[in-house]
């Protein structure tokens, strides 16, 4: 069997001492920043990219992935114990999680969140193992025109599921795309949009922009709301759930996993939206919907399973198509490019060690995470008492050095500052800057395929609608946009975000 050989290969890569250690470090860091409110996986991963330069690409990606799914575990700890979401994806966990904690059942809530996460993690690892190669085999049929259309669909869909104004999100993506075009034109070698700065002839770096938007801008934004950033942890209590509790919650975990896995693959999907969807689903299915928000175990287990499942399945489109469904995956693509890898359908067949090693490391990582999060919960609780006034100078300094290190360039630090200010202004004007990263990463790919498609068709734009695959994606994009404009979906979406 091919699959068994691949799994064996994956384990041999994932279980090498170096990769095991990197997976552990990634999970540990992920849990750490997950627990701490005010710093998320995006800036952490951006800061880590330069640190991974000397590593093998596989090890680097294993560590970065660990930070991402590890933060999903850590986020629930803060949500349950302090009533603050450590990450946005654990916003709904706050509702029932903290209610349970107030009844003295914090330990059970933590355990349920962890079990939900580990079950979801293992099942969605299997989904990646099957799904990504399958999707890649389809993607090999794609021509340039189809790629353009699938990217358009991805960008449009990213907007549907994002929060806030649709027009603003579209504009943010487009602005990101414009920034992605800065640098040397691939065909003519001419400098574009560089405003005479030679230092950006190779393009605006991904890391300085991400650090500015999500490091500096975030610090300034958090400091203005500093009063909310303190809380007291409640005692943990009994950690082992009873058999009856496990039986009660298990179906919810499976439902959450399924929902999260599906939402993770969707362009624009990701942990946060999955957790919300899973929570609403449980509430609707439950025989006791009135108890939700007052400490139902399902209200913790299912969203936590969903956000972890989504955090993993969103790797599927990234690894098989080279198209990021959310900003974190855009960052992973940025990291792969820095390591000289071009994400796309060939990566699975040409670099099986990398792909299967990464998939299997997620399995290993989930087990590491349960160990890190349950028995060691006391350490994380103590971390919660670190005040933000010590945290933010640390983030600030690491952003500065990290950005410099990517290219040993002082100009990059200046670019970071510029984007810090832009990100801050955008947030003040209620424009979520996250979609910018998608545009930034996709623009060069989009342009390359757009140009190639039109060169082949001799400038005939109809190529995008005469190829059936491309037409299908474009129709889907139009349908999505149409539905949103009709505002039905939009209202429902806002409801989902405001669900108590």
């Amino acid at each position, binding site marked *: 069997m091919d699959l068994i050989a691949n799994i064996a290969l994956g384990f041999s890569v994932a279980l090498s001492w170096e990769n095991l250690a990197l997976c552990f470090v990634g999970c540990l860091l992920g849990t750490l920043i997950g627990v701490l409110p005010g710093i998320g996986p995006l800036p952490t991963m951006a800061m880590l990219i330069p640190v991974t330069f000397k590593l093998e690409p596989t090890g680097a990606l294993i560590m970065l992935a660990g930070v991402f799914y590890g933060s999903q575990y850590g986020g629930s700890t803060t949500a349950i114990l302090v009533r603050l979401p450590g990450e946005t994806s654990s916003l709904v966990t706050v509702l029932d999680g903290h209610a349970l904690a107030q009844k003295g059942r914090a330990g059970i809530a933590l355990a349920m969140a962890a079990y939900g996460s580990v079950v979801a993690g293992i099942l969605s690892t299997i989904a990646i193992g099957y799904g990504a190669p399958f999707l890649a085999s389809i993607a090999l049929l794609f021509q340039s025109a189809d790629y353009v259309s699938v990217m358009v669909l991805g960008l449009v869909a990213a907007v549907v599921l994002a929060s806030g104004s649709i*027009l603003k999100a579209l504009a943010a993506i487009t602005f990101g795309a414009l920034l992605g075009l800065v640098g040397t034109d691939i065909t003519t070698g001419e400098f574009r949009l560089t405003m005479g700065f030679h230092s950006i002839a190779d393009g605006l770096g991904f890391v300085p922009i991400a650090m500015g938007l999500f490091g500096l801008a975030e610090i300034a934004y958090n400091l203005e709301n500093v009063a909310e950033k303190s809380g007291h942890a409640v005692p943990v209590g009994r950690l082992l759930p009873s058999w009856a509790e496990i039986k009660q919650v298990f179906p919810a975990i499976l439902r959450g996993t399924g929902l999260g896995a599906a939402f993770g693959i969707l362009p624009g999907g990701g942990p946060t939206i999955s957790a919300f969807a899973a929570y609403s689903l449980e509430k609707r299915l439950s025989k006791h919907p009135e108890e939700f928000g007052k400490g139902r175990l399902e209200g913790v287990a299912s969203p936590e399973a969903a956000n972890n499942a989504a955090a993993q399945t969103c790797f599927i489109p990234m690894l098989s198509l080279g198209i990021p469904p959310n900003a974190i995956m855009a960052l992973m693509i940025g990291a792969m490019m820095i390591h000289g890898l071009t994400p796309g359908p060939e990566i699975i067949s040409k670099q099986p060690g990398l792909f299967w090693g990464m998939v299997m490391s997620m399995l290993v990582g989930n087990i590491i995470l349960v160990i890190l999060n349950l028995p060691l919960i006391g350490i994380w609780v103590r971390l919660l008492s670190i005040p933000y006034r010590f945290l933010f100078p640390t983030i600030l300094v690491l952003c500065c050095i990290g950005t410099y290190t990517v290219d040993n360039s002082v100009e990059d630090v200046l670019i970071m500052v510029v984007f810090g200010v832009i990100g801050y202004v955008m947030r003040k004007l209620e424009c979520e800057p996250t979609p910018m990263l998608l545009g930034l990463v996709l623009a060069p790919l989009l342009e390359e395929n757009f140009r190639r498609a039109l060169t082949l068709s001799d400038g005939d734009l109809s190529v995008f609608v005469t190829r059936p695959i491309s037409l299908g994606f474009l129709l889907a994009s139009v349908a999505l946009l149409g539905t949103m404009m009709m505002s039905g979906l939009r209202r429902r979406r806002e409801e989902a975000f405001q669900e108590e």
Partner: protein
Amino acid sequence: MKRLLSRDALAGLMFIAFAAWGFIAAADLEGGTSAAMGPGYFPRIVSSILLLLGTAILVVALWSGDALPPERGRLRPIFSVSLAGLVFAALLEKGGIIAAITAAVLIGVMAGERPRPLPLVALTGALILVSIALFIWGIGVPIPIWPDWEAMSRRWI
């Protein structure tokens, strides 16, 4: 006037400004034809879309927006954080990592609730040590640890 200064209308204006930047920066680039695109073709398409979206946001805001003013902010945090980044950039290559980090932390902490002197010194020291260990010894980034006195004296004397 209230509508023009609402967060939506200002956001529209901001995107229009970004689009204008795109058009101006791509002005000297060859456009070419769709069959043989020049370097300016795609940037212009993207700038046009951005202009369209920015205008749409502005029009909607002026027409029917709820005219919410921009979220109130304090200038000190964003100012100190940015200044810390700038000073760090200015100091790093000639002044060395110790000076750059110390300056960045001291300026940076102005942004929020100031820690007391002892924890502040401890934090700065820890950050310096970790950065030297991780970045200079660990991944071999060519940054000096100590200031380059000679270069500095040449600049200032």
